[in-house]
């Protein structure tokens, strides 16, 4: 078990330099990826994975830190995507100016849903209500007539250029996605080390105890749910401008199931877990040349096995194994295990 000890100055420095090395590795790898292969297919899968990753970080704060699993994240992406698209078509709002509107719209919807489902009701009810909302959202979009484009959806114009950089070139769009992915990782990191992160983890570990030390758990649960909506809204805008066409099928309940699957496989409590989960799920069928149906059978089986055998996700599981192995080795050579 983990024993809480005050880290020494040296320990702190080692941990910081390890963290910095990890961050540098991730940044360099993401920036260098387009040089490894130029193929359009590779970059477009990478962009899709990146868009999912942004949503996943919202879900990771919600589930990994606070212990609430939402099945409405794809629907929140949909709220963002539809808000941006409708604003673009109605008043000609561009990519950048539609982002705040879309993020706020998603967060507001999450807030309303949270007020209904988070105040009185236990974690299981929350899952069921969010799942129902995901189904409801696509029904509303299908029945929205010409305003939401019904079942065929809406088209949105290309994204245009910023500071003379043409973002319609797929490699530039890739860098734009990487920028937002890195920003989401940074925000998640800052939240997890802040006092607010500790508050959220207190709610996760023991909600009654948290309440008894004057943490207003209802407020924080709704707030963090809205925060996860902000991430999803941003991802929705990116997706709308990347695909240049959105439809209700993108945002129904099944995509939410896949988002949950990615965050579980990567490990919701690890800083790079969601990124790893998205990369694994998006690239594995490409690397192994799997048929999509077989790939999904494999994902389903993988999810069941990860939960049964490595509940902290693949990455977390490997780190645990590594720690256990090194601890055993140290014991063998007569050193103290941590």
């Amino acid at each position, binding site marked *: 078990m983990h024993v809480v000890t005050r880290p020494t100055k040296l320990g702190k420095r080692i941990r910081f330099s390890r963290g910095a090395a990890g961050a540098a590795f991730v940044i360099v790898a993401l920036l260098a990826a387009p040089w490894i292969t130029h193929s359009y297919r590779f970059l477009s899968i990478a962009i899709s994975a990146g868009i999912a990753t942004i949503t996943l970080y919202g879900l990771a704060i919600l589930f990994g830190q606070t212990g609430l699993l939402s099945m409405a994240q794809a629907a929140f992406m949909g709220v963002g995507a539809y808000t941006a698209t409708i604003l673009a078509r109605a008043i000609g709002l561009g990519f950048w100016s539609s982002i705040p509107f879309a993020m706020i719209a998603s967060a507001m919807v999450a807030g309303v849903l949270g007020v209904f489902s988070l105040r009185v009701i236990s974690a299981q009810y929350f899952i069921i209500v969010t799942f129902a909302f995901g189904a409801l959202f696509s*029904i509303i979009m299908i*029945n929205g007539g010409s305003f939401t484009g019904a079942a065929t959806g809406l088209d949105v114009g290309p994204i245009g250029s910023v500071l003379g950089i043409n973002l319609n070139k797929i490699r530039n769009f890739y860098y734009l996605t990487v920028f937002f992915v890195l920003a989401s990782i940074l925000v998640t990191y800052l939240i997890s080390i802040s006092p607010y992160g500790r508050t959220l983890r207190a709610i996760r570990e023991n909600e009654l105890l948290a309440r008894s030390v004057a943490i207003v758990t209802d407020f924080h649960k709704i707030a963090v749910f809205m925060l996860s909506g902000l991430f999803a809204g941003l991802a929705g805008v990116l997706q709308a401008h990347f695909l240049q066409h959105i439809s209700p099928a993108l945002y129904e309940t099944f995509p939410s199931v896949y988002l949950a699957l990615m965050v579980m496989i990567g490990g919701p409590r690890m800083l790079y877990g969601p990124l790893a989960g998205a990369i694994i799920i998006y690239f594995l069928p490409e690397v192994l040349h799997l048929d999509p149906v077989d790939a999904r*059978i494999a994902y389903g089986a993988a999810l069941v096995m990860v*939960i049964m055998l490595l509940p902290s996700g693949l990455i977390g599981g490997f780190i645990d194994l590594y720690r256990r192995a090194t601890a055993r080795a140290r014991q063998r050579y007569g050193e103290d295990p941590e």
Partner: protein
Amino acid sequence: MGIFIQQIVNSLSVGSVIILVGLGVTIIFGLTGIVNFAHGEFVMVGGMVTWVLVSSGANFFVALLAGGVAVGALGLLLERTLFRFTLKRPMNGFIVSLGLVVLLQHIVIRALNTNQKSILDPMGDVVWQVGSVRIVAMRLVVVVITAIVVAVTFFTIQRSRYGMALRASLADRETASLMGIPIRRYIAAVFAYGSFLAGLGGALLIALFPVTAFLGTTITVRAFAVALIGGLGNVTGCVVAGIILGLINGFSAGYGLPQWTDAYSFGLMILILLVRPQGLLSGTEGPSVG
């Protein structure tokens, strides 16, 4: 008036299937605390087993029973190998069921395909004319089978000594255990029986409507809606909620708003959770089994 009565008659058969499936959810969730989101997939598998058997020449009523038993066995297998280990952490059980949603759906697609499957009306398209109301024989059969299953379930839970033991283990696990009630076995049995009901519901569904491999999630949401509206673990509540949803279904279809059908049931569920979280007829204390 004719249309009105006709809609009520039609609604009852749709409501019956919803009741059967919701009954499975309400006893599994309410009595064992397992949130199984693959329940709709169980229904789909039951329908597909029936379809395979009927298309290879079996009698529908044999195939109906086989569909139920096959899914019941699947449920027992999954409880013994997976859900049994997640009882202390219900969230893990839920995530496992998400994996099963993806797994079962795509195994069925791999084994069969994504096309709509339907069977010929097992009652040979017999229609009875009562006054101005037309009653399709198969729909009546569905209602009768549901009524029998609901009655058996109700009396088993409320009146038999096994049902008493089950309710005792829900009220106080440790004491029930001390009285010699094998709680783990009861949980497995409830899960298997709930899955059996899902298989049966799927088999009846395919006798009424065509079924695809993608049916599962809609059915899951409706089944949870019925279970939560009625009150968890409450058989009577489930029947009442199933009839209400069946009527809403029937009337919105009959009066020209079929595309909003699902929206009504989700909306009603959210409303009920808001004003009366314990359900219309209060259910068990919820999933307290740890």
